[in-house]
Protein backbone atom coordinates (compact mmCIF):
# COMPACT_ATOMS: atom_id res chain seq x y z
CA UNK A 1 0.00 0.00 0.00
CA UNK A 2 1.44 3.42 -0.86
CA UNK A 3 2.49 5.39 2.18
CA UNK A 4 0.13 8.21 1.30
CA UNK A 5 -2.87 6.05 2.20
CA UNK A 6 -1.71 5.98 5.79
CA UNK A 7 -1.31 9.73 6.07
CA UNK A 8 -4.24 11.64 7.42
CA UNK A 9 -4.07 14.96 5.62
CA UNK A 10 -5.03 17.97 7.71
CA UNK A 11 -8.12 19.75 6.45
CA UNK A 12 -7.33 22.97 4.63
CA UNK A 13 -9.92 24.94 6.55
CA UNK A 14 -10.37 24.91 10.29
CA UNK A 15 -14.07 24.17 10.00
CA UNK A 16 -15.38 22.11 12.87
CA UNK A 17 -12.90 23.55 15.34
CA UNK A 18 -14.62 24.91 18.41
CA UNK A 19 -15.02 28.67 18.66
CA UNK A 20 -14.66 28.39 22.38
CA UNK A 21 -13.39 25.70 24.72
CA UNK A 22 -14.70 25.66 28.26
CA UNK A 23 -13.96 23.44 31.24
CA UNK A 24 -16.05 22.36 34.20
CA UNK A 25 -15.90 20.14 37.27
CA UNK A 26 -18.65 17.49 37.63
CA UNK A 27 -21.02 19.30 39.97
CA UNK A 28 -24.68 20.29 39.86
CA UNK A 29 -23.82 23.96 39.50
CA UNK A 30 -22.04 23.27 36.22
CA UNK A 31 -25.65 23.05 34.97
CA UNK A 32 -25.74 26.42 33.15
CA UNK A 33 -22.78 25.32 31.01
CA UNK A 34 -24.04 21.80 30.37
CA UNK A 35 -27.58 22.99 29.62
CA UNK A 36 -26.33 25.76 27.29
CA UNK A 37 -24.54 23.02 25.39
CA UNK A 38 -27.22 20.30 25.44
CA UNK A 39 -30.18 22.62 24.75
CA UNK A 40 -28.42 24.42 21.92
CA UNK A 41 -28.12 27.87 23.56
CA UNK A 42 -24.46 28.12 22.50
CA UNK A 43 -25.39 27.17 18.92
CA UNK A 44 -28.29 29.62 18.90
CA UNK A 45 -25.77 32.34 19.75
CA UNK A 46 -23.51 31.28 16.90
CA UNK A 47 -20.95 29.42 18.99
CA UNK A 48 -19.45 25.98 18.57
CA UNK A 49 -18.30 25.12 22.10
CA UNK A 50 -16.10 22.28 23.29
CA UNK A 51 -17.03 21.49 26.89
CA UNK A 52 -14.53 19.34 28.80
CA UNK A 53 -14.53 18.02 32.37
CA UNK A 54 -11.48 18.77 34.54
CA UNK A 55 -10.06 16.38 37.14
CA UNK A 56 -9.19 19.23 39.50
CA UNK A 57 -9.65 22.98 39.91
CA UNK A 58 -5.88 23.38 39.48
CA UNK A 59 -5.91 21.64 36.09
CA UNK A 60 -8.85 23.77 34.94
CA UNK A 61 -7.13 26.97 36.05
CA UNK A 62 -3.84 26.07 34.33
CA UNK A 63 -5.52 25.28 31.02
CA UNK A 64 -7.40 28.59 31.07
CA UNK A 65 -4.41 30.57 32.35
CA UNK A 66 -2.15 29.30 29.57
CA UNK A 67 -4.75 29.48 26.81
CA UNK A 68 -5.43 25.76 26.19
CA UNK A 69 -9.04 26.53 27.15
CA UNK A 70 -10.83 29.88 26.91
CA UNK A 71 -12.62 29.70 30.23
CA UNK A 72 -15.03 27.72 32.34
CA UNK A 73 -16.73 27.18 35.65
CA UNK A 74 -14.65 28.37 38.60
CA UNK A 75 -14.99 28.77 42.33
CA UNK A 76 -15.69 32.44 43.07
CA UNK A 77 -12.34 33.18 44.76
CA UNK A 78 -10.29 31.48 41.99
CA UNK A 79 -10.15 34.42 39.54
CA UNK A 80 -8.99 36.66 42.40
CA UNK A 81 -6.32 34.14 43.39
CA UNK A 82 -5.24 33.96 39.73
CA UNK A 83 -5.04 37.76 39.44
CA UNK A 84 -2.80 37.83 42.51
CA UNK A 85 -0.74 34.83 41.42
CA UNK A 86 -1.52 32.87 44.60
CA UNK A 87 -0.14 29.35 44.38
CA UNK A 88 2.19 30.16 41.49
CA UNK A 89 0.05 30.81 38.42
CA UNK A 90 -0.79 34.40 37.57
CA UNK A 91 -3.55 34.92 35.04
CA UNK A 92 -5.95 37.65 34.04
CA UNK A 93 -9.50 36.41 33.92
CA UNK A 94 -12.85 38.13 33.63
CA UNK A 95 -16.03 37.06 35.40
CA UNK A 96 -19.07 37.79 33.25
CA UNK A 97 -21.73 35.75 35.11
CA UNK A 98 -22.39 34.03 38.40
CA UNK A 99 -23.40 30.42 37.73
CA UNK A 100 -25.42 29.82 40.87
CA UNK A 101 -26.21 30.64 44.47
CA UNK A 102 -25.93 28.26 47.45
CA UNK A 103 -25.55 24.58 46.57
CA UNK A 104 -23.02 23.22 49.11
CA UNK A 105 -23.78 20.86 51.95
CA UNK A 106 -21.96 19.88 55.13
CA UNK A 107 -22.00 16.11 55.47
CA UNK A 108 -20.79 14.26 58.56
CA UNK A 109 -20.19 10.54 58.89
CA UNK A 110 -19.10 7.86 61.32
CA UNK A 111 -18.38 8.69 64.95
CA UNK A 112 -18.53 12.44 64.33
CA UNK A 113 -22.11 12.17 63.02
CA UNK A 114 -22.96 10.02 66.06
CA UNK A 115 -21.48 12.63 68.39
CA UNK A 116 -23.97 15.18 67.01
CA UNK A 117 -26.78 13.07 68.53
CA UNK A 118 -30.21 14.20 67.41
CA UNK A 119 -29.15 17.77 66.60
CA UNK A 120 -31.71 19.13 64.17
CA UNK A 121 -31.18 20.29 60.59
CA UNK A 122 -29.78 22.84 59.89
CA UNK A 123 -27.04 22.18 62.44
CA UNK A 124 -26.07 25.32 64.37
CA UNK A 125 -22.46 26.18 65.06
CA UNK A 126 -23.01 25.81 68.79
CA UNK A 127 -24.64 22.37 68.34
CA UNK A 128 -21.60 21.34 66.29
CA UNK A 129 -19.24 22.69 68.98
CA UNK A 130 -21.12 20.66 71.62
CA UNK A 131 -20.96 17.54 69.44
CA UNK A 132 -17.27 18.15 68.87
CA UNK A 133 -16.68 18.27 72.65
CA UNK A 134 -18.50 14.93 73.04
CA UNK A 135 -16.42 13.51 70.19
CA UNK A 136 -13.19 14.69 71.81
CA UNK A 137 -14.27 13.24 75.16
CA UNK A 138 -14.21 9.77 73.59
CA UNK A 139 -10.49 10.25 73.00
CA UNK A 140 -10.88 10.87 69.27
CA UNK A 141 -8.33 13.10 67.51
CA UNK A 142 -9.56 16.32 65.85
CA UNK A 143 -11.94 15.25 63.09
CA UNK A 144 -10.83 15.62 59.48
CA UNK A 145 -13.14 17.77 57.36
CA UNK A 146 -12.64 18.06 53.61
CA UNK A 147 -13.33 21.06 51.43
CA UNK A 148 -12.80 21.14 47.67
CA UNK A 149 -10.15 23.84 47.33
CA UNK A 150 -8.49 26.40 49.60
CA UNK A 151 -9.75 29.38 47.58
CA UNK A 152 -13.43 28.45 47.80
CA UNK A 153 -16.61 29.67 49.48
CA UNK A 154 -16.69 26.18 51.05
CA UNK A 155 -13.49 26.84 52.95
CA UNK A 156 -14.36 30.45 53.87
CA UNK A 157 -17.99 29.85 54.92
CA UNK A 158 -17.08 26.74 56.90
CA UNK A 159 -14.23 28.57 58.69
CA UNK A 160 -16.54 31.47 59.47
CA UNK A 161 -19.24 29.13 60.81
CA UNK A 162 -16.72 27.22 62.98
CA UNK A 163 -15.03 30.39 64.28
CA UNK A 164 -18.41 31.95 65.18
CA UNK A 165 -19.05 28.93 67.41
CA UNK A 166 -15.62 29.21 69.04
CA UNK A 167 -14.13 26.29 67.09
CA UNK A 168 -10.61 26.95 65.83
CA UNK A 169 -10.52 25.75 62.21
CA UNK A 170 -6.77 25.09 62.35
CA UNK A 171 -6.64 23.32 65.73
CA UNK A 172 -9.98 21.80 66.72
CA UNK A 173 -10.53 20.25 63.31
CA UNK A 174 -8.15 19.29 60.49
CA UNK A 175 -9.16 20.75 57.14
CA UNK A 176 -8.02 18.93 54.02
CA UNK A 177 -8.77 19.19 50.31
CA UNK A 178 -10.22 16.40 48.17
CA UNK A 179 -11.78 16.36 44.70
CA UNK A 180 -15.61 16.23 44.98
CA UNK A 181 -16.11 12.82 43.30
CA UNK A 182 -13.69 11.24 45.81
CA UNK A 183 -15.61 12.47 48.88
CA UNK A 184 -18.27 9.77 49.46
CA UNK A 185 -15.62 7.04 49.26
CA UNK A 186 -13.26 8.94 51.57
CA UNK A 187 -16.11 9.24 54.09
CA UNK A 188 -16.94 5.55 53.73
CA UNK A 189 -13.35 4.47 54.41
CA UNK A 190 -12.96 6.80 57.39
CA UNK A 191 -10.22 8.82 55.67
CA UNK A 192 -12.33 11.89 56.49
CA UNK A 193 -15.07 12.50 59.08
CA UNK A 194 -17.05 14.99 57.05
CA UNK A 195 -16.98 17.31 54.09
CA UNK A 196 -18.37 20.51 52.68
CA UNK A 197 -18.93 20.22 48.91
CA UNK A 198 -21.29 21.16 46.12
CA UNK A 199 -24.18 18.95 45.15
CA UNK A 200 -24.79 16.21 44.18
CA UNK A 201 -21.96 14.91 46.37
CA UNK A 202 -23.81 15.44 49.68
CA UNK A 203 -26.91 13.67 48.40
CA UNK A 204 -24.72 10.98 46.92
CA UNK A 205 -23.02 10.33 50.28
CA UNK A 206 -26.45 9.88 51.90
CA UNK A 207 -27.57 7.71 48.97
CA UNK A 208 -24.53 5.49 49.60
CA UNK A 209 -25.43 5.46 53.34
CA UNK A 210 -22.06 6.86 54.41
CA UNK A 211 -23.13 10.18 55.94
CA UNK A 212 -25.81 12.65 56.98
CA UNK A 213 -26.43 16.11 55.52
CA UNK A 214 -26.28 18.42 58.55
CA UNK A 215 -26.28 21.88 56.98
CA UNK A 216 -26.43 23.77 53.70
CA UNK A 217 -24.08 26.63 52.87
CA UNK A 218 -27.18 28.76 52.27
CA UNK A 219 -27.96 28.45 55.97
CA UNK A 220 -24.64 30.18 56.76
CA UNK A 221 -25.16 33.03 54.28
CA UNK A 222 -28.49 32.86 52.44
CA UNK A 223 -28.11 33.06 48.64
CA UNK A 224 -24.35 33.39 48.81
CA UNK A 225 -22.58 33.60 45.43
CA UNK A 226 -20.95 30.33 44.43
CA UNK A 227 -19.40 29.37 41.07
CA UNK A 228 -18.70 31.88 38.31
CA UNK A 229 -18.17 31.89 34.57
CA UNK A 230 -14.53 32.99 34.19
CA UNK A 231 -12.97 33.69 30.81
CA UNK A 232 -9.50 34.50 29.55
CA UNK A 233 -9.09 38.31 29.74
CA UNK A 234 -6.96 38.49 26.56
CA UNK A 235 -9.75 36.83 24.61
CA UNK A 236 -12.29 39.21 26.14
CA UNK A 237 -10.22 42.17 24.96
CA UNK A 238 -9.49 40.70 21.53
CA UNK A 239 -12.90 39.30 20.70
CA UNK A 240 -15.61 40.80 22.92
CA UNK A 241 -18.39 39.47 20.66
CA UNK A 242 -17.41 35.88 21.40
CA UNK A 243 -17.32 36.51 25.15
CA UNK A 244 -20.71 38.20 24.99
CA UNK A 245 -22.19 35.31 22.99
CA UNK A 246 -20.89 32.83 25.57
CA UNK A 247 -22.25 34.90 28.45
CA UNK A 248 -25.63 35.30 26.73
CA UNK A 249 -25.85 31.52 26.21
CA UNK A 250 -25.06 30.75 29.84
CA UNK A 251 -27.59 33.30 31.11
CA UNK A 252 -30.22 31.77 28.78
CA UNK A 253 -29.45 28.37 30.30
CA UNK A 254 -29.74 29.76 33.85
CA UNK A 255 -33.11 31.27 32.94
CA UNK A 256 -34.23 27.91 31.52
CA UNK A 257 -33.08 26.19 34.73
CA UNK A 258 -35.26 28.52 36.83
CA UNK A 259 -38.39 26.96 35.31
CA UNK A 260 -39.50 24.09 37.59
CA UNK A 261 -40.89 22.27 34.55
CA UNK A 262 -37.34 21.82 33.25
CA UNK A 263 -35.86 20.25 36.39
CA UNK A 264 -36.28 16.61 35.33
CA UNK A 265 -34.70 17.29 31.95
CA UNK A 266 -31.86 19.22 33.61
CA UNK A 267 -31.18 16.26 35.93
CA UNK A 268 -31.20 13.99 32.88
CA UNK A 269 -28.67 16.21 31.06
CA UNK A 270 -26.39 16.47 34.10
CA UNK A 271 -26.48 12.73 34.76
CA UNK A 272 -25.72 11.79 31.17
CA UNK A 273 -23.21 14.50 30.32
CA UNK A 274 -21.29 14.97 33.55
CA UNK A 275 -22.31 12.63 36.37
CA UNK A 276 -22.86 9.14 34.94
CA UNK A 277 -21.97 7.49 38.26
CA UNK A 278 -24.60 9.39 40.24
CA UNK A 279 -28.22 8.23 39.78
CA UNK A 280 -30.43 10.77 38.01
CA UNK A 281 -32.82 10.86 40.97
CA UNK A 282 -29.94 11.85 43.27
CA UNK A 283 -28.86 14.61 40.89
CA UNK A 284 -32.44 15.93 40.83
CA UNK A 285 -32.76 16.47 44.62
CA UNK A 286 -31.04 19.84 45.01
CA UNK A 287 -32.38 21.14 41.69
CA UNK A 288 -35.89 20.37 42.91
CA UNK A 289 -35.30 22.09 46.27
CA UNK A 290 -35.07 19.05 48.50
CA UNK A 291 -32.32 17.04 50.15
CA UNK A 292 -32.14 13.51 51.55
CA UNK A 293 -30.80 14.29 55.02
CA UNK A 294 -30.22 10.72 56.19
CA UNK A 295 -30.38 7.31 54.50
CA UNK A 296 -33.78 6.20 55.80
CA UNK A 297 -35.64 9.52 55.85
CA UNK A 298 -37.80 10.98 53.08
CA UNK A 299 -36.20 13.92 51.27
CA UNK A 300 -36.68 17.18 53.19
CA UNK A 301 -37.80 20.35 51.42
CA UNK A 302 -34.88 22.79 51.34
CA UNK A 303 -36.07 25.70 49.22
CA UNK A 304 -33.19 27.38 47.40
CA UNK A 305 -30.82 24.46 48.12
CA UNK A 306 -29.28 25.56 44.84
CA UNK A 307 -30.47 28.56 42.85
CA UNK A 308 -30.25 29.24 39.13
CA UNK A 309 -31.99 32.14 37.42
CA UNK A 310 -31.49 35.25 35.32
CA UNK A 311 -31.04 37.66 38.22
CA UNK A 312 -28.80 35.18 40.04
CA UNK A 313 -26.27 35.33 37.20
CA UNK A 314 -25.48 39.00 37.88
CA UNK A 315 -21.71 39.24 38.54
CA UNK A 316 -21.97 41.64 41.45
CA UNK A 317 -18.64 43.32 42.32
CA UNK A 318 -19.80 43.13 45.94
CA UNK A 319 -19.22 39.37 45.71
CA UNK A 320 -15.64 39.95 44.63
CA UNK A 321 -15.16 42.31 47.57
CA UNK A 322 -16.52 39.65 49.91
CA UNK A 323 -14.32 36.88 48.53
CA UNK A 324 -11.30 39.16 48.86
CA UNK A 325 -12.25 40.08 52.43
CA UNK A 326 -12.51 36.39 53.33
CA UNK A 327 -9.13 35.74 51.69
CA UNK A 328 -7.63 38.50 53.83
CA UNK A 329 -9.31 37.25 56.98
CA UNK A 330 -7.73 33.82 56.61
CA UNK A 331 -4.30 35.12 55.64
CA UNK A 332 -4.42 34.11 51.97
CA UNK A 333 -4.02 37.74 50.91
CA UNK A 334 -1.99 40.37 52.76
CA UNK A 335 -4.23 42.87 54.51
CA UNK A 336 -2.66 45.94 53.00
CA UNK A 337 -2.47 44.56 49.44
CA UNK A 338 -4.42 46.19 46.62
CA UNK A 339 -7.57 44.52 45.33
CA UNK A 340 -7.31 43.26 41.75
CA UNK A 341 -9.40 45.54 39.56
CA UNK A 342 -11.57 44.75 36.56
CA UNK A 343 -12.04 41.03 37.20
CA UNK A 344 -15.80 41.14 37.82
CA UNK A 345 -17.42 42.60 34.69
CA UNK A 346 -21.05 43.63 35.31
CA UNK A 347 -20.74 45.89 32.23
CA UNK A 348 -20.62 42.80 29.98
CA UNK A 349 -23.63 41.33 31.78
CA UNK A 350 -25.59 44.58 31.29
CA UNK A 351 -24.69 44.71 27.61
CA UNK A 352 -25.79 41.12 27.09
CA UNK A 353 -29.05 41.24 29.04
CA UNK A 354 -30.00 44.91 28.53
CA UNK A 355 -31.15 44.72 32.16
CA UNK A 356 -30.28 46.95 35.08
CA UNK A 357 -28.60 45.42 38.12
CA UNK A 358 -31.17 43.02 39.54
CA UNK A 359 -32.55 43.34 43.01
CA UNK A 360 -32.19 40.11 44.92
CA UNK A 361 -33.63 40.05 48.38
CA UNK A 362 -30.46 38.56 49.83
CA UNK A 363 -29.46 39.27 53.37
CA UNK A 364 -26.30 41.34 53.13
CA UNK A 365 -22.94 39.76 53.78
CA UNK A 366 -22.90 38.91 57.47
CA UNK A 367 -20.74 41.61 59.05
CA UNK A 368 -18.87 39.01 61.02
CA UNK A 369 -17.79 37.29 57.79
CA UNK A 370 -15.61 40.30 57.14
CA UNK A 371 -12.24 40.78 58.77
Amino acid at each position, binding site marked *: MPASEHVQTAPALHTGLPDLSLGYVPLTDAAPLLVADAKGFFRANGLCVALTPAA*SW*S*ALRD*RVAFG*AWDGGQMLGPMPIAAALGL*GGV*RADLVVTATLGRNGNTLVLGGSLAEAMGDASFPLTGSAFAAGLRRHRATGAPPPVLAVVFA*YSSHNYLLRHWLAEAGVNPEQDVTLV*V*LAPPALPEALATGQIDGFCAGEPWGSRAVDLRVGRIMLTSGAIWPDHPEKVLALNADLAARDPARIEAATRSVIAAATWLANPENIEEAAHILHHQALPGVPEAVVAFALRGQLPLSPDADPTPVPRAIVHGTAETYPDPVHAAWFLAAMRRWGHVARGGAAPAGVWRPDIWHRVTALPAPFIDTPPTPRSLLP
Partner: protein
Amino acid sequence: MTEPTIRVLLIDDNASRAAAVRAGLEADGCQVVGVLPNVADLVAQVRRAAADVIVCDIDNPSRDAIESMRALQSSEPRPVVMFVDQSDPAAITAAMEAGVAAYVIEGLSPRRVRAVVDVAIVRFRAHQALRAELAEARGALEDRKIIERAKGILMRARGMDEDAAFRTLRTMAMDQGQRLVEVAQGVVTVGSLLQTKRISTKK
Protein backbone atom coordinates in the same frame (compact mmCIF):
# COMPACT_ATOMS: atom_id res chain seq x y z
CA MET B 1 31.54 23.13 45.00
CA THR B 2 28.65 20.76 44.50
CA GLU B 3 25.01 21.67 44.80
CA PRO B 4 22.90 19.48 47.10
CA THR B 5 20.98 16.67 45.40
CA ILE B 6 17.42 17.59 44.43
CA ARG B 7 14.84 15.47 46.23
CA VAL B 8 11.91 14.65 43.96
CA LEU B 9 8.56 13.13 44.92
CA LEU B 10 6.62 11.52 42.07
CA ILE B 11 2.85 11.25 42.28
CA ASP B 12 1.59 8.97 39.56
CA ASP B 13 -0.91 6.13 39.50
CA ASN B 14 0.70 4.87 36.29
CA ALA B 15 3.48 2.60 37.50
CA SER B 16 5.30 2.16 34.18
CA ARG B 17 5.41 5.90 33.48
CA ALA B 18 6.53 6.59 37.05
CA ALA B 19 9.36 4.06 36.66
CA ALA B 20 10.49 5.75 33.44
CA VAL B 21 10.45 9.21 35.00
CA ARG B 22 12.29 7.91 38.04
CA ALA B 23 15.02 6.33 35.90
CA GLY B 24 15.40 9.57 33.94
CA LEU B 25 15.66 11.70 37.05
CA GLU B 26 18.14 9.38 38.74
CA ALA B 27 20.28 9.33 35.60
CA ASP B 28 20.24 13.10 35.86
CA GLY B 29 21.54 13.04 39.43
CA CYS B 30 18.28 13.63 41.30
CA GLN B 31 17.14 11.59 44.26
CA VAL B 32 13.60 10.22 43.92
CA VAL B 33 12.38 10.14 47.51
CA GLY B 34 9.07 8.47 46.76
CA VAL B 35 6.67 7.30 44.10
CA LEU B 36 3.09 7.55 45.26
CA PRO B 37 -0.11 6.71 43.43
CA ASN B 38 -3.05 9.01 44.15
CA VAL B 39 -3.06 8.17 47.86
CA ALA B 40 -5.24 9.11 50.75
CA ASP B 41 -2.85 10.74 53.21
CA LEU B 42 -1.01 12.63 50.51
CA VAL B 43 -0.33 15.73 52.58
CA ALA B 44 1.28 13.71 55.38
CA GLN B 45 3.37 11.83 52.82
CA VAL B 46 4.54 15.06 51.20
CA ARG B 47 5.57 16.40 54.60
CA ARG B 48 7.41 13.18 55.49
CA ALA B 49 9.27 12.90 52.18
CA ALA B 50 10.78 16.37 52.65
CA ALA B 51 10.97 16.76 48.88
CA ASP B 52 12.20 19.85 47.02
CA VAL B 53 10.01 19.19 44.00
CA ILE B 54 6.80 17.25 43.39
CA VAL B 55 6.16 16.02 39.85
CA CYS B 56 2.74 14.76 38.77
CA ASP B 57 0.36 14.44 35.88
CA ILE B 58 -1.41 17.70 35.07
CA ASP B 59 -4.73 15.84 35.51
CA ASN B 60 -3.88 14.12 38.78
CA PRO B 61 -6.89 14.68 41.10
CA SER B 62 -4.51 15.17 44.05
CA ARG B 63 -3.29 18.49 42.69
CA ASP B 64 -5.91 20.54 44.55
CA ALA B 65 -4.77 18.94 47.81
CA ILE B 66 -1.10 19.71 47.10
CA GLU B 67 -1.89 23.33 46.24
CA SER B 68 -4.04 23.85 49.31
CA MET B 69 -1.62 22.53 51.94
CA ARG B 70 -0.36 25.87 53.23
CA ALA B 71 -3.60 27.76 52.66
CA LEU B 72 -5.47 25.32 54.90
CA GLN B 73 -2.85 24.91 57.61
CA SER B 74 -0.30 27.66 58.04
CA SER B 75 2.25 25.23 59.54
CA GLU B 76 2.38 23.06 56.39
CA PRO B 77 4.95 23.37 53.59
CA ARG B 78 4.02 25.59 50.67
CA PRO B 79 4.21 23.86 47.27
CA VAL B 80 4.09 26.41 44.45
CA VAL B 81 3.00 25.21 41.03
CA MET B 82 5.75 25.72 38.55
CA PHE B 83 5.01 25.74 34.87
CA VAL B 84 8.71 26.06 34.25
CA ASP B 85 8.89 29.82 33.86
CA GLN B 86 5.80 31.88 33.20
CA SER B 87 7.74 34.19 30.90
CA ASP B 88 8.62 31.29 28.58
CA PRO B 89 5.46 30.32 26.63
CA ALA B 90 7.19 27.55 24.65
CA ALA B 91 8.29 25.80 27.83
CA ILE B 92 4.77 26.07 29.26
CA THR B 93 3.26 24.62 26.10
CA ALA B 94 5.74 21.74 26.20
CA ALA B 95 4.87 20.97 29.83
CA MET B 96 1.12 21.22 29.21
CA GLU B 97 1.23 19.06 26.08
CA ALA B 98 3.27 16.40 27.81
CA GLY B 99 0.90 16.66 30.79
CA VAL B 100 3.53 17.51 33.38
CA ALA B 101 2.82 19.61 36.46
CA ALA B 102 5.56 20.35 38.98
CA TYR B 103 5.52 21.90 42.43
CA VAL B 104 8.45 23.55 44.16
CA ILE B 105 8.40 23.26 47.93
CA GLU B 106 11.02 25.75 49.09
CA GLY B 107 13.15 28.25 47.21
CA LEU B 108 14.92 25.91 44.80
CA SER B 109 16.46 27.95 41.99
CA PRO B 110 14.37 28.11 38.78
CA ARG B 111 17.29 26.74 36.75
CA ARG B 112 17.48 23.55 38.84
CA VAL B 113 13.71 23.02 38.78
CA ARG B 114 13.78 23.50 35.04
CA ALA B 115 16.17 20.57 34.72
CA VAL B 116 13.78 18.31 36.66
CA VAL B 117 10.79 19.40 34.59
CA ASP B 118 12.68 18.90 31.32
CA VAL B 119 13.49 15.30 32.24
CA ALA B 120 9.87 14.68 33.21
CA ILE B 121 8.62 16.16 29.93
CA VAL B 122 10.86 13.87 27.89
CA ARG B 123 9.75 10.77 29.81
CA PHE B 124 6.04 11.73 29.76
CA ARG B 125 6.25 12.27 25.99
CA ALA B 126 7.95 8.92 25.41
CA HIS B 127 5.19 7.28 27.43
CA GLN B 128 2.50 9.06 25.39
CA ALA B 129 4.12 7.83 22.17
CA LEU B 130 4.28 4.29 23.53
CA ARG B 131 0.60 4.39 24.44
CA ALA B 132 -0.31 5.68 20.98
CA GLU B 133 1.67 2.82 19.42
CA LEU B 134 -0.09 0.30 21.65
CA ALA B 135 -3.48 1.70 20.72
CA GLU B 136 -2.54 1.50 17.05
CA ALA B 137 -1.36 -2.10 17.46
CA ARG B 138 -4.56 -2.96 19.26
CA GLY B 139 -6.51 -1.30 16.43
CA ALA B 140 -4.67 -3.39 13.85
CA LEU B 141 -5.46 -6.52 15.81
CA GLU B 142 -9.15 -5.57 15.90
CA ASP B 143 -9.07 -4.96 12.14
CA ARG B 144 -7.59 -8.40 11.53
CA LYS B 145 -10.28 -10.04 13.69
CA ILE B 146 -13.06 -8.32 11.74
CA ILE B 147 -11.54 -9.39 8.42
CA GLU B 148 -11.23 -12.98 9.68
CA ARG B 149 -14.89 -13.01 10.70
CA ALA B 150 -15.97 -11.58 7.35
CA LYS B 151 -13.97 -14.26 5.55
CA GLY B 152 -15.63 -16.93 7.68
CA ILE B 153 -19.07 -15.63 6.81
CA LEU B 154 -18.34 -15.63 3.07
CA MET B 155 -16.80 -19.12 3.29
CA ARG B 156 -19.93 -20.49 4.99
CA ALA B 157 -22.54 -18.53 3.03
CA ARG B 158 -20.95 -18.85 -0.42
CA GLY B 159 -18.99 -22.06 -0.04
CA MET B 160 -15.74 -20.22 -0.88
CA ASP B 161 -12.28 -21.24 0.23
CA GLU B 162 -10.24 -18.82 2.31
CA ASP B 163 -8.32 -17.34 -0.61
CA ALA B 164 -11.46 -16.72 -2.64
CA ALA B 165 -13.15 -15.09 0.35
CA PHE B 166 -10.22 -12.74 0.85
CA ARG B 167 -10.07 -11.88 -2.89
CA THR B 168 -13.81 -11.13 -2.85
CA LEU B 169 -13.42 -8.77 0.10
CA ARG B 170 -10.49 -7.03 -1.58
CA THR B 171 -12.42 -6.62 -4.85
CA MET B 172 -15.44 -5.22 -2.98
CA ALA B 173 -13.15 -2.78 -1.19
CA MET B 174 -11.54 -1.58 -4.42
CA ASP B 175 -14.91 -1.27 -6.15
CA GLN B 176 -16.35 0.81 -3.33
CA GLY B 177 -13.18 2.80 -2.67
CA GLN B 178 -13.26 1.67 0.94
CA ARG B 179 -10.71 0.20 3.32
CA LEU B 180 -10.68 -3.59 3.57
CA VAL B 181 -11.78 -3.47 7.19
CA GLU B 182 -14.76 -1.23 6.36
CA VAL B 183 -16.05 -3.68 3.78
CA ALA B 184 -15.39 -6.56 6.19
CA GLN B 185 -17.35 -4.75 8.89
CA GLY B 186 -20.24 -4.42 6.44
CA VAL B 187 -20.15 -8.15 5.70
CA VAL B 188 -20.07 -8.98 9.41
CA THR B 189 -23.07 -6.71 10.07
CA VAL B 190 -25.10 -8.14 7.21
CA GLY B 191 -23.99 -11.64 8.16
CA SER B 192 -25.27 -11.25 11.71
CA LEU B 193 -28.58 -9.91 10.37
CA LEU B 194 -28.94 -12.94 8.12
CA GLN B 195 -28.04 -15.19 11.03
CA THR B 196 -30.81 -13.71 13.20
CA LYS B 197 -33.29 -14.02 10.37
CA ARG B 198 -32.44 -17.64 9.85
CA ILE B 199 -32.88 -18.41 13.51
CA SER B 200 -36.21 -16.62 13.67
CA THR B 201 -37.58 -18.30 10.53
CA LYS B 202 -36.58 -21.70 11.95
CA LYS B 203 -38.91 -21.20 14.90
